[in-house]
């Protein structure tokens, strides 16, 4: 008697969870559904049950808009940005975790402050600096101002603090300099952490909206999250193609998330910042 009740309870619980998850993921499912329906069936609840399938929307955006260019732009910008952020963070975090030098704590507090102050708050002066350097409408405008990431430095330092001290002590006895200790001990031990951090930074950079919006105005220079909003500024919105671009914007990030999910979620939660 006890076993069936338990099973019914579990069944009820999991159906409930399924319902909750479906409700929460609904907007994203809707996006995919709208993108694969014929143009005349975009609105309405019948969409959910409709069986008609069409890749017309995808064809249309690929033919009429520089979608390939946007994807390339987004990929190039976010890869360069991520690589730069990770490299700078590795060196800074190594300095904070391996050395004990005058001013270390003050400087680290300073890094924390940069994490807390929203960068959006500094968009006006930063825009003016980028303008003065003549970087508007170039990828440098997107990449360079975000290269020093307090968030990346903070997380990387957390990882480096877990490197066993016996290892570094032994290496020092053998006469290893700091660069070799970084390369031969800190980096190999931290590879999973660095992978996770890179993935998170890549996703954040790929999704970046407000800053590229300000500094990349040329259509051929745009990145996907900004380009997609131009679809809804056209009076009558053509929802099929819009959702096709939306789906393509989210897809790479979802694939990455799928493969690195465990590291991803855990590192996210250690940091406190999106």
């Amino acid at each position, binding site marked *: 008697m006890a076993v069936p009740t338990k099973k019914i309870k579990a069944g009820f619980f999991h159906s409930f969870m399924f319902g*909750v998850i479906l409700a929460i993921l609904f907007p994203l499912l809707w996006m995919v559904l709208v993108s694969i329906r014929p143009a005349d069936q975009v609105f309405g609840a019948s969409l959910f049950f409709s069986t008609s399938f069409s890749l017309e929307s995808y064809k249309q955006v690929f033919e009429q808009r520089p979608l390939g260019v946007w994807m390339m732009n987004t990929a190039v910008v976010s890869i360069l940005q991520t690589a730069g952020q990770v490299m700078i963070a590795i060196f800074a975090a190594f300095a904070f975790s391996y*050395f004990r030098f*005058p001013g270390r704590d003050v400087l*680290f507090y300073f890094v924390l402050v940069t994490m807390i102050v929203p960068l959006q708050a500094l968009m*006006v002066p930063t825009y003016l600096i980028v303008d003065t350097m003549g970087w508007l409408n170039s990828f440098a405008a997107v990449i360079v101002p975000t290269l020093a990431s307090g968030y990346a430095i903070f997380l990387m330092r957390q990882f480096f603090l877990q490197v066993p001290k016996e290892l570094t002590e032994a290496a020092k006895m053998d006469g290893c300099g700091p660069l070799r200790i970084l390369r031969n001990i800190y980096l190999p031990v931290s590879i999973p952490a660095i992978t996770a951090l890179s993935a998170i930074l890549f996703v954040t950079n790929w999704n970046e909206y407000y800053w590229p919006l300000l500094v990349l105005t040329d259509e051929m220079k745009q990145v996907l999250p900004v380009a997609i909003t131009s679809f809804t500024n056209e009076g009558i919105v053509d929802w099929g193609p819009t959702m096709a671009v939306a789906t393509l914007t989210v897809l790479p990030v979802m694939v990455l998330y799928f493969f690195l999910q465990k590291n991803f979620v855990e590192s996210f939660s250690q940091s*406190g910042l999106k």
Partner: protein
Amino acid sequence: MNGMKPQKSFAHVPTDGANTAGGSSVFGGQAPSHKKWLTGIKENIWAYVFLAPALLLFGIFFVYPFVYSSYLSFMDWNLYNDAKEFVGLANYQALFGDPVFWKAALNTGLYVIGTVPVSMILALGLAILVEKAGKLKEFYRFLLFIPVVASIAVVGIIWSLLYSPAGGFINQMLALIGIQGPNWLNDPKFALVSLMIIGIWSAVGYNMVLYIAGLKGIDPQLYEAAELDGASGWQQFWKITVPQLSPVSFFVFIISIFNSFQVFSTIHIMTQGGPNNATNVVIYQMYQEAFQFFNIGKASALTFVIFCAVLLLTVVFIRSTQRNVHYE
């Protein structure tokens, strides 16, 4: 999730992991020889070299913008004209005399108050459910975290369609049960709430993950003991789960406040601060002043005000951490 407690990192930051490189000569138990002392200096130079790129960039893109915008906040400048005219406190007077600023400040507060508690409660509920899910735990967590990873621009676009007054999904569903849905984004009564719903939706998964980590850190013996004493599930929740999670809740609370304080993208994509400033917030007003009205002086005054507000909030939080939250 190794039962880590994220807020620890904030509280203990500069003291843990104190390292030994430079300090070895001090703590080595022998008199520091000249050579060791020199090595210390040499190694410290390496530390500054490693920090240089980060500090240089922070200097140019964090410290300098702050100083520069403080300077500009005393100037009258329209961006396209080279001439900047010193106007004293006129920009601050204009800002504080502008009803839009007070409206935006109020909306920012409402947005924070409207999103933070709801997203925290939902996140805690989901975290508890996910923890009970046995083998499917990881899978549920994976799915519920997906909205966090989605681009906020895309999220804004999708919700524009869902909120669309005529054929949008939400109003169609409401019509099925005989309710005529409002014009969500164009009705001053509903526009801000519509944005809050999106804010909650995209924050819940993130807060949930933090709560799951917190739940894993609770000693199961506490529940076993309560079980023996005959405490109900509800009592266990209030007497064990909630107090044990208080450091995590505090952390989630602060992060959520800072994140919702920064809301910009959904506003820019969906309402542009309208209708009639019903969804204007301070960050968005700053954007408008600078990039739509080209009033750099006033925008810079607002930048300075926001900066001070954030720092003040941070100081308040740090103080209350030191006083109220017990870590162990």
